[in-house]
């Protein structure tokens, strides 16, 4: 409903501007095109009501509309399957005169590129991918920076020295998160172990909850997740344990248990990209903003976190923000305890993007598939 109202409003707004422009035109005959709003399209993989990944992107879209008002007009298509349907949706958007199109799931990578070739004037931005073109850029958030900070909290606060991690599928993005989290925890508590359970789903609240409870059973007293629902928080709350959320502030689901969450503020990035198209400075690039740009952030910290830990987290956050420290600064050890990255060096972005091994402190083998 809000969505409809918003659309109507922005339409009204644009008619008004058009009228005004017409008036100005009549008088001075200049700047005509400026009044046409930039049409921005979003292709979502899930429903906007999933309370996870897609929800966060749609919040970003709304934020952009708030920021840029009449300058932009947005549309979105939700629950677009990553099979053959996605190319049609993206192409339709391009054909309908969208100037900038965000495709927000990895599976859209090749369809986006195929369409981009046919519509050289339209700008495309693909989230999480690695292929770019003349008019196709990629973007993602350095969520792992947030993971690292929450790892510090978990490492400090665990009493059993076992931390549970409910994961979805062993792709680099998820493994990077596990590693960053574990590295944080290990830095402040070398005895800590991170147990990972692969739920083999992005989204199934009941299953996520069972995975969480399995981990609690195996001694975990702090949980975190890389799946979409808040079921892990609920499990922790009902068992009197702590949990760290993902995607958005999940404290409503368990105020006591929810220590904090790694959250995405896509809005800042979307606004910046739309602006760059408006002022003609857009270029195809691989944008990977994080804490420094405010795209990755932490949800408010729970009061259960001791003041010294809060201070530590804030200090580290500041260092990352200023570029003084990076998450995967050496020494980085693998599971066997061998030094992969020596002290004084840091892992490159490309290494991070292809992460396929666990750092020291993660328990169990990384699934081969």
């Amino acid at each position, binding site marked *: 409903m809000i969505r409809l109202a918003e659309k109507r409003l922005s339409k009204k707004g644009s008619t008004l501007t058009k009228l005004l422009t017409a008036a100005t035109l009549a008088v001075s005959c200049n700047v005509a095109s400026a009044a046409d709003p930039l049409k921005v399209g979003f292709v979502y993989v899930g429903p906007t009501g*999933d309370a996870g990944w897609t929800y966060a992107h749609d919040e970003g879209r709304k934020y952009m509309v708030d920021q840029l008002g009449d300058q932009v007009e947005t549309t979105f298509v939700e629950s677009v399957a990553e099979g053959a349907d996605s190319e049609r949706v993206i192409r339709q958007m391009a054909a309908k005169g969208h100037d900038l199109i965000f495709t927000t799931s990895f599976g859209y990578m090749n369809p986006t590129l195929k369409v981009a070739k046919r519509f050289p004037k339209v700008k495309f931005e693909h989230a999480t991918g690695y292929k770019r073109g003349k008019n196709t850029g990629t973007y993602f958030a350095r969520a792992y920076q947030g993971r690292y900070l929450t790892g510090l909290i978990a490492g400090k606060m665990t009493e059993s020295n076992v931390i549970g991690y409910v994961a979805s599928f062993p792709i680099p993005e998820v493994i990077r998160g596990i590693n960053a989290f574990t590295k944080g925890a290990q830095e402040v508590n070398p005895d800590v172990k991170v147990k990972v359970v692969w739920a083999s789903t992005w989204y199934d609240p009941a299953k996520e909850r069972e*995975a969480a409870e399995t981990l609690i*059973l195996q001694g975990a007293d702090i949980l975190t997740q890389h799946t979409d629902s808040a079921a892990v928080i609920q499990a922790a709350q009902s068992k009197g344990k702590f949990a760290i959320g993902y995607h958005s502030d999940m404290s409503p689901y368990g105020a006591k248990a929810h220590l904090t969450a790694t959250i995405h503020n896509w809005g800042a990035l979307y606004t910046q990209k739309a602006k760059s198209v408006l002022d003609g400075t857009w270029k195809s690039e691989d944008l990977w903003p994080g804490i420094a740009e405010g795209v990755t952030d932490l949800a408010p910290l729970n009061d259960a976190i001791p003041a010294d830990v809060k201070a530590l987290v804030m200090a580290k956050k500041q260092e990352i923000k200023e570029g003084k420290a990076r998450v995967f600064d050496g020494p980085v050890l693998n599971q066997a305890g061998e030094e992969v990255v020596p002290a004084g060096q840091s892992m490159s972005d490309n290494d991070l993007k292809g992460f396929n091994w666990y750092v020291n402190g993660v*328990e169990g083998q990384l699934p081969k598939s």
Partner: protein
Amino acid sequence: MDIELITNILFATIRTGTPLILIALGEMVCEKSGVLNLGQEGMVLMGAVLGFIASVVTGHAGFGILAAIFAGMLMSVLFGFLAISLVSNQVATGLALTIFGIGLSAFLGAGYVGMAIDGITAWEIPYLSDIPIIGKILFSHDPLVYLSWGIFGLLFWCFKSTRLGLTIRAVGENPEAANAIGISVMKVRYGAVLFGGAMAGLAGGYLSIAYTPMWSEGMSAGRGWIALALVVFASWKAERILLGAYLFGAASIMHLVLQGLGFEASPNLLAMLPYAATIIVLVVLASDAVKTKLSTPLALGQPYRPQV
């Protein structure tokens, strides 16, 4: 594995199996009367969303559960009107009901995503829950789990030794003959479909109010389909549904537990386990082929209209 771990696995098994039991028992009654309703997924989601909304609005989980049951029944009335009164094809109508239910639940629930409710908490039965091991496994659940056992007992008794059970079976085996001895086939079938809807709605309520108290789109994640398979697997016997649902629950729990124990295998191959296990158990059961065939309602899926 130590005893506490096993206790907890069994406890989790019961909880995981409960929504499947609720849906499957409802569908069993429905199919015994000769009606195949493939709309479970849609009815479960409608139960989940309306149950959740009612809980938020009234602030009472109990009202939520009632609303969930009501929602499931409303959906089943729609199905019944088409499939029973208008003799439409049951398979297609059921699938359409699923599509409709998924859409409608998402539409109604759009404003309730991200809200939290207290939900129904565990209710430990006095004295019984103090029994070592068994008390923890069986008597420390939320009330809906006990309710699922109550309904199971009722249905078991109903089909074993009551006239009602016999009537429903008669309608599912041979509607013409049932009509001839004065049974209203339509009324019995409507009743069975409504019961199936109520149970599916209840299962939805269990998910959104008790198990994971939240609403998000498509939160039933395919459980309606699994329950449908379960009914056939159980060859329309309540006690086998109970067994099957817990077996399935155990298999999906083990898939998670084994990983935690450091068991190395591809998660995708592990995820196949419950399905492969079901096929194997099915083959074993079906070697008793004559019996299985005899328990299939003969008129299942066949529309019936009295000749007036």
